[in-house]
């Protein structure tokens, strides 16, 4: 069940996207998110969709895998699509079956919003799928660097992030293990009435919390033993390397923005 989820997962690879500097990728995603809102017509949304598919292609991640892994998102997508279809009452009336009335503008809005949603989810997923959590954290730490002046604990935030990311797979594994052990004892989360299911969560959550706290304590001790004392004066083992292709990727994005602006209605 959880094996197919791809949120926050990293797939090692050697595509051009994988090799980009994490800072470039993070900037790219943020700028892209802003650019998406320029689009407002069939042509511009088409360009956005094409561009996104191109990025997916360059990342060498199979589209099928991406779509399969994002299934839960599609439920949300369909829901917003339906909301737009049923609640926008502008333009020509297209369908009218009793209480269901679908207007042209509703259909248009529905499709546009869905595309917008889709490209955002795809691009952000590509970021996490092609960048190891450690690189993302490094990138964020550097990008947030200027905020140190206003006393933002940048290093600590980055450390917190990398620790949480590091422990997601561990906790997932542990959840699976405990789930199986309790299933073997006859507790069943997957079936039965809602009340029973909620009750079945307790035997899963308590052991999980107990071990998470224990792990946290062990980790703190291990860090202290190895002389960790915060970010002050700490050097880096992994150096980030900004290259021409990273600048180029941002230029391409500027080009995309220009194009969208040009074709905007």
């Amino acid at each position: 069940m959880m094996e197919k989820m791809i949120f926050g997962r990293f797939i090692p690879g050697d595509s051009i996207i994988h090799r980009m500097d994490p800072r470039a990728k993070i900037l790219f995603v943020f700028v892209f998110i802003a650019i998406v809102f320029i689009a407002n017509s069939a042509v511009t949304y088409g360009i956005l969709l094409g561009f996104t598919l191109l990025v997916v292609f360059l990342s060498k991640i199979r589209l099928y895998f991406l779509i399969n892994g994002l299934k839960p998102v599609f439920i949300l997508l369909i829901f917003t699509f339906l909301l737009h279809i049923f609640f926008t009452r502008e333009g020509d009336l297209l369908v009218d079956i009793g209480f269901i009335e679908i207007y042209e503008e509703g259909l248009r809005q529905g499709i546009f919003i869905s595309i917008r949603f889709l490209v955002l989810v795809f691009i952000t997923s590509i970021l996490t799928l092609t960048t190891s959590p450690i690189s993302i954290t490094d990138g964020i730490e550097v990008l947030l660097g200027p905020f140190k002046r206003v006393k933002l604990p940048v290093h600590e935030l980055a450390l917190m992030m990398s620790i949480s990311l590091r422990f997601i797979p561990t906790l997932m594994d542990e959840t699976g293990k405990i789930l199986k052990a309790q299933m073997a004892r006859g507790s069943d989360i997957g079936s039965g009435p809602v009340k029973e299911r909620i009750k079945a969560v307790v035997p899963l959550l308590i052991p999980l919390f107990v071990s998470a706290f224990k792990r946290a304590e062990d980790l703190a001790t291990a860090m202290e033993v190895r002389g960790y004392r915060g970010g002050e004066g700490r050097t880096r083992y992994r150096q980030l390397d900004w290259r021409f292709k990273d600048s180029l990727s941002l230029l391409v994005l500027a080009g995309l923005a220009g194009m969208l602006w040009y074709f905007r209605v």
Partner: protein
Amino acid sequence: MDILLKEVGYSYAKDTPFEKRALTNVSLHIPSGSYTAIIGHTGSGKSTVLQHLNALLKPTEGSVVIGERKIEAGVKAKNLRDVRRQVGIVFQFPEQQLFDETVLKDIMFGPMNYGVPEEEASRRAHELVEQLGLPSEVLAKSPFDLSGGQMRRVAIAGVLAMEPDVLVLDEPTAGLDPRGRREIMDLFHQLHIQKGLTTVLVTHSMEDAARYADTVAIMHDGRCVVTGDPAEIFSNEEQLRDYRLEPPRTIRLQRKFEEKAGITLDAISLTEEALAKNIALALSEGRDSE
């Protein structure tokens, strides 16, 4: 209860880039009433096999027959509760599954899930706590206040309280002190005989496998490569080394003794007691012939 694995294959995370094959064409018959040890090097697929024994994992190829139930690859299996009640699993580090307020409630959790009345479940808990050598005061305590060894025993009691027909043990004594190990393994063996259980022991310990099992299966690279009688399997040192295993200590000592003394003992020694007896026998024979 018989368990039959037929050409079972299993891949984790099937159809994703993370797909990982764990089992290939595993066929294994666990006859009713037998004590089967599954041994193998780390990563050989022992634990994956174990989870097929009560349908926690369903094969991606082949089929598993558990008693009357057949679980086939590609066929949706529903209502596995019955199977899971009949096959109890003690997982590695089972103390991780403790959760309830008191030890008593935790032990009663399993049986009550399967519809055993409260009084009966409580009776079983009291009995098991005694059997496992814990003081009866622990019943009222929180499981998190116990020592590691005690937690382990409570967790084992929680599985035994379901009174399964088949008991599957995954390294049940890992991390315990030598005396605790022996006590718990002896208890499992005693239950095996008393209640006519079918026992499956997954272990790294060749000594335990040699001492308790009547059938041994070797796993290697996701395949079940050898099954047979422990005396036969453990006397074939070359084969064991091929699968990166060592013979049990008793046999290693026996071989050294034979080499030094220049004689061959009549039988292979699977336990310390047997080894002592065999050596004593050989020595007295030696004296007679002089």
